[in-house]
Structures are given as structure tokens and as C-alpha cells.
């Protein structure tokens, strides 16, 4: 079955500390993995995707196929990073539905 698991509902981190949002997935093929973010009162938006191997707003995520994980990391948290983060997979790439995890709310403490 296709599943995305985010074990933490809420993660509180002090400003300047490292951030790691965990994500594990279950899928038999080779899905495309994403992180989406929803800031307060804003639309859900794409943060990054694994195939582009890019760093957005200081965030990176490495796909580990052996552990079926796609954890999101940032070395130094900023207050504006406070938001809801969703890990997601697309079974057939970008032209397909997205299976989302239940999300992790990241709260950056001053």
C-alpha cells in the first residue's frame, strides 16, 4: 500500500538550532518524493522535490531508498520557518495524484 508517515505531529525547536522533520514512505515502485509547506493563512505550496536535489530556504532532503526515508533538514532554524510541513509522494511522477503524510507542525521558539 502507498503510505507516507510523519511520526511527529508537532516539533518545537529553538531559533538557530538544527531542524529535522522525519518522513518515511511505503511504496513498491520508484515514486517521486516531495515536501510541501503551508504557512499561516497561506496556500499549500511545494517546498522541494527529491529529483531536483535543490536547497530551498536552507532546507534539504535526501532520499534514502534503503530506509525508505526522506527527512527534511535545516542547519539553523529561523522564526519564519514556523509552518505546517507535509511529506508526500507521487506514484507516477508529477503527472499523478499526491499521497500526503499527516503533516508536522514546526514551531520555532525565539
Amino acid at each position: 500500500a502507498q503510505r507516507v508517515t510523519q511520526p511527529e505531529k508537532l516539533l518545537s525547536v529553538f531559533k538557530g538550532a538544527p531542524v529535522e522533520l522525519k518522513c518515511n514512505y511505503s511504496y513498491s515502485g520508484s515514486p517521486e518524493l516531495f515536501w510541501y509547506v503551508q504557512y499561516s493563512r497561506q496556500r499549500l505550496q511545494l517546498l522541494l522535490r527529491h529529483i531536483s536535489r535543490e536547497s530551498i530556504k536552507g532546507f534539504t532532503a535526501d532520499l534514502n531508498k534503503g530506509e525508505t526515508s526522506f527527512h527534511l533538514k535545516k542547519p539553523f532554524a529561523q522564526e519564519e520557518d514556523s509552518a505546517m510541513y507535509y511529506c508526500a509522494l507521487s506514484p507516477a511522477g508529477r503527472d499523478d495524484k499526491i499521497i500526503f503524510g499527516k503533516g508536522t507542525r514546526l514551531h520555532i521558539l525565539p
Partner: protein
Amino acid sequence: GAGVSQSPSNKVTEKGKDVELRCDPISGHTALYWYRQSLGQGLEFLIYFQGNSAPDKSGLPSDRFSAERTGGSVSTLTIQRTQQEDSAVYLCASSALGQEQFFGPGTRLTVL
């Protein structure tokens, strides 16, 4: 462009009534998706339209839910005989072929 738009932004209805939710995708986007965002369940896929192909309805939770996409543009999600468990934010997204999905602001549905 203005991005994906959805209407209404909020809808309150009584249990048993039918509701229609509208989505206007970004002009030129061939793919349109509906998702549901509810407390404790996160974001769930509902239905996906791609061009003239038959839609992927695999995420619709029951036969009370249906969706249409007219003229390859605007889409309407209809929920018949609404139940309290249908209360959620309904999100629409659109994409060009091979590109990322852009999400609308959502319609918050409350079933009393």
C-alpha cells in the same frame, strides 16, 4: 495569472443537503486535482482529471461524492446528502503537463 481560485471560501450546510464546490484552475493547465484536508486525517487525494482522459476517482470516499470538469477548465465537486464527517477543507490544485501542482485557497465546508 491569479492562480487557482475556489468558491465559496466557506460553506455551512445542514446534514442531508447537497453542496457544490467550484474550482477555477490556472489557464492552460491540463491537470486538475481535488484533495480533502481534515483534522487528524491530513490531506487525502479525492479525484484527478488529466486532459480528455477518464478521471482517476480512486480517492472518492463514497458514491455521495462526484466531480465534473467542463470544457477542460472549471471543475465542480458535488457532495450529496452531506454528513458531519464531510466537514473539512476541500483543496483544488492544477498543473501543466510534467510540472508542479499549484493549490487553491480551499473551501471550508462545515456540516451541522
